[in-house]
């Protein structure tokens, strides 16, 4: 009704205004927080409280970061090459985990037969820490992209399955009943009701999976690599260049944040119907 809509729009714009103001305030606060840490760090090094050989100050790290954009010293790759190599490994493992894990979890959550069949295998494999797979993976497939992606896959797979499974199990019974009384077959109810209603949980799982993928990267690249951020960190360590190590860490952190915000965008789009009354 008109009244509904007008009220809604008024409320919405008021909400947006306050939200904007709050956002500005919080943004300022966050920036201040980061700045404080950087200043302290710089001060501690400059006052000689720590050896600048062990902990280079932020200014040096920034300089190294700039240099790495075109320099291939010491690991033989520019920063860009390393980033791309790492993204390839992490994202291929991550996406394969989603493509296999989410449908598997959904199927298990919806059809008892699938659940009974797959669940025991899954429960046996689940407690094995992903890192423990490394030796076996190396024996199977060497140390190429596939091997590294497989390690990432193991870390991303489990949250995808578990969240999809739980999400679809929580589907509202009355919505299923509505569809049944309209005469919908089970697969259609799965598609029209089960999947959309599981999406919030699925996205939460994908978020965990993304975090896992990206944070397992360094471990996966220890497998032996010729490029990648983890590899760059390794080399930085062996040639005693803590600034390189820190640049690697910072870039990993930053890209992780970017990936996570891209995911948030997707989530916002797919869950745009989720409005709190």
């Amino acid at each position, binding site marked *: 009704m008109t009244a509904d809509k007008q009220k809604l729009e008024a409320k919405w714009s008021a909400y947006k205004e306050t939200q904007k103001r709050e956002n500005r305030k919080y943004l300022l606060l966050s920036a201040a927080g980061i700045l404080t840490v950087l200043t302290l760090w710089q001060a501690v090094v400059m006052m000689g409280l720590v050896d600048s050989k062990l902990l280079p100050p932020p200014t040096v790290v920034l300089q190294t970061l700039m240099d790495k954009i075109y320099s291939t010293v010491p690991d033989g790759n520019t920063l860009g090459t390393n980033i791309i190599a790492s993204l390839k490994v992490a994202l291929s493992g991550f996406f394969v985990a989603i493509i296999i894990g989410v449908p598997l979890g959904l199927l298990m959550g919806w059809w008892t037969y699938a659940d009974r069949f797959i669940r025991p295998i899954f429960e046996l494999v689940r407690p094995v820490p992903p890192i423990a797979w490394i030796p076996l993976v190396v024996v199977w497939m060497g140390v190429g992209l596939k091997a590294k992606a497989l390690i990432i896959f193991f870390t991303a797979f489990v949250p995808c399955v578990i969240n999809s499974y739980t999400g679809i199990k929580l589907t509202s019974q009355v919505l299923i009943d509505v569809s*049944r009384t*309209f*005469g919908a077959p089970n697969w259609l109810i799965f598609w029209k009701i089960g999947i959309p*209603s599981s999406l919030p949980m699925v996205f939460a799982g994908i978020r965990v999976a993304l975090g896992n993928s990206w944070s397992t990267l360094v471990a996966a690249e220890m497998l032996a690599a010729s490029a990648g951020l983890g590899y760059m960190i390794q080399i930085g360590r062996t040639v005693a260049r803590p600034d390189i190590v820190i640049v690697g860490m910072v870039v990993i952190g930053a890209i992780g944040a970017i990936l996570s915000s891209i995911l948030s965008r997707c989530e916002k789009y797919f869950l745009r*119907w*989720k*409005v709190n009354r």
Partner: protein
Amino acid sequence: MPDNENRPVKVEVKNLTKRFGDLLVLDDMSFNIRKGEFVCVVGPTGCGKSTFLNCLTRIHMPSAGDIYIDGVPANPRKHNISFVFQEPSALPWQTVEQNISYGLKIKKVPQDEINRRVNQILDLMGLQESRKAYPGELSVSAEQRIIIGRSFAMQPDLLLMDEPYGQMDVKMRFYLEDEVIRLWKELGSTVIFITHNIEEAVYLAEKVLILTNKPAKIKEEVYIDLPRPRDITSPEFIHYRNYITDKIKWW
């Protein structure tokens, strides 16, 4: 006894019994609902009204006895049933218009017919302006109108409504009561309407089924022999209302 008795039987309830574990909810109920009849079901809270509809739609299977629609065991795939559930049941991830067309798509109604009916229902329910909105963005009463619209759009053969107007203000309720009557008359549907509101039952029904406390049995069938549109202030109306109220009060 009005002319209902001459119409063919639409829903035949035969020795219907439903237990949940040890809890006996429906106890050996038998009655008929005739084709095109508007039946209201009243009874104390928790007596098994919703359970009866759930058995009719096969959400639950009866423990004994059965329900036949047009002489065959009830089956939502075969029968054109529409159910307005007691709980809110709009699909939150579909817009208002998608929600209204949901059942029609399941029944594979042609797209242009779907569009026509959806438009008609949006007008009827006063939802035209929020057709692209999601249910979560609307008020509770608007969500309920989506659900009612969704069931009307089906032009069902058998319309089941479980306290559909509980969330409505009086004005909207009166409006929708008249609309359900109009739909019923236009389509000749059979309507089973559960309500707590005795005035509503007397206003709507051709026949009121009064249920006993749990385990539910039919306590009495009351034919409401009043011309339409009914006047809720007329002495005859009030007489019916008081009579049914008394029946529910005395055990």
